[in-house]
């Protein structure tokens, strides 16, 4: 897709103030494999945006670009009013503290207990006393219903518990934006539903704006304010769950069957 046509993919969220996040015309290639070809996404404040798409369409690459783990070849990414590609290291690290990222594998630190995992993002915060940090850890674990697991090692936790602890760890910094990379991947339908409800609770309690990458359409139904479908590195379509479920496009409808 050329750049002109890709600009037509800009997704506006009317009725909102400044968007929490804006991706404009980003391109990313690995060797000769072009993954993102001018993708545009706008995330409104307080919105849950679900991203659907086949494997290899660039969903994970997109959210890794948002936090600066992958640098796009072209385009701009504005997060909370700041272009992340122009930030210095220190500024970027400060901005990252306002973005929560739940990894597909939860990415808990194997050598640390649950308490130490949650304490880890707080370690550079000199304004908090040890007691206050402990209080925050307990609060975050309580919010995901896992206070009992505070002294356990990650290897002692089930898949669902790991995801919850991973979520608690990202919430401890009280982020304004949450990025979920397949939060229900590998979980049973009941646990998936619980995680879906938890994502909604996080939105209510922390007033976060979220991008959720998932293949789990049942989960998408619970959490999505808006859904976009990616294909070949660009946005194929967007709309609410109901709009896409009744889409004329067979490719889009296939996700809902």
């Amino acid at each position, binding site marked *: 897709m050329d750049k002109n046509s890709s600009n037509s993919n800009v997704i506006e969220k009317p009725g909102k103030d400044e968007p929490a996040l804006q991706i404009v015309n980003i391109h990313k290639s*690995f060797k000769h494999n072009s993954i993102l070809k001018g993708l545009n996404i706008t995330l409104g404040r307080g919105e849950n945006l679900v991203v659907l798409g086949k494997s290899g369409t660039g969903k994970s690459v997109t959210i890794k670009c948002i936090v600066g783990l992958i640098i796009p070849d072209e385009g701009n990414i504005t997060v909370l009013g700041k272009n992340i590609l*122009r930030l210095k*290291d220190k500024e970027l690290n400060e901005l*990252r*503290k306002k973005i929560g*990222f739940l990894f*597909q594998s939860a990415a808990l630190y*194997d050598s640390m207990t649950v308490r130490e995992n949650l304490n880890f993002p707080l370690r550079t915060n000199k304004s908090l006393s040890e007691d206050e940090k402990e209080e925050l850890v307990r609060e975050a674990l309580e919010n995901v219903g896992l206070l009992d697991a505070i002294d356990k090692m990650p290897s002692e936790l089930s898949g669902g518990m790991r995801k919850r602890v991973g979520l608690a760890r990202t919430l401890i910094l009280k982020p304004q934006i949450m990025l979920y990379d397949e939060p229900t991947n590998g979980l049973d339908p009941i646990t998936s539903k619980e995680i879906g409800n938890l994502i909604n609770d996080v939105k209510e309690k922390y007033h976060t704006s979220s991008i959720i990458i998932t293949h789990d359409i049942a989960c998408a139904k619970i959490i999505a304010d808006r859904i976009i479908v990616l294909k070949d590195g660009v946005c194929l379509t967007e709309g609410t769950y109901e709009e896409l479920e009744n889409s004329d496009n067979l490719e889009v409808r296939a996700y809902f069957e």
Partner: protein
Amino acid sequence: MDLAKNKRPSPQEESEPLFPSLYNFFSAITALTLFTGRYFKSVLLPPFEFNELVRQSFLIGYKSFPLVGITGFIMGLVLTIQSRPTLAEFGAESWLPAMVAVSIIREIGPVITALICAGKVGSGIGAELASMRVTEQIDAMEVSGINPFKYIVVTRILACTLMLPILVVFSDVIALLGSFLAVNINGDVTFTLYFSQVIDSLAFSDVFPAFVKTFFFGFAIGLIGCFKGYYTDKGTEGVGLAANSAVVLSSLLIFIMDMIAVQITDLLY
């Protein structure tokens, strides 16, 4: 763009080279040089991860004492038993403590201890970091605003650099004790006499260069282990590859550094 300088060199983003092997070799050398430069820059700038440095020093140093001690003891014992017949043939059996001491302090102690640590510590670091990379733990640190290079890499390299000299000194002492035991299998030498002969036989030029080179050996083990683990990119297969290549490369580097150290010592003393 500031983000760009934080990123690992990605061979995937390059076009096809004319001579792939040569290209890969020079790419690896360039990446290792940049990695080393980043280490020296990071080690001098705050924040300093002191608690993690102490923890790594405990894991790398203290936990290696038993293995290093046992190998050191056997090294001293075997060297003495093997050398005795040859020295006895020339009627120089009384030189045994001096010969063993010089061999162990100057060469065998530092090199064998470094190789043992390359196997134990280097492979451990390589596998641990590679596993952290594969399971996105390093990415998780980065997105939570913590500099993973400082926390993971700098502390491990520094701990290796500081702990290896201590392990070598420990190994040398245990090896000399093993040698003392071996001397007493076929003879009767007092502890005082044996160690006074050992000390008399050693000069500053034997001890100091041998001690200094152990810092470099430790640095090489930490650096290669971290480099291989930090930049692994082949999933779980990459974990094994990182551990394996960390041992092979750091062992090779130890021999090369030893050769250079011997040449420099020879020129200076």
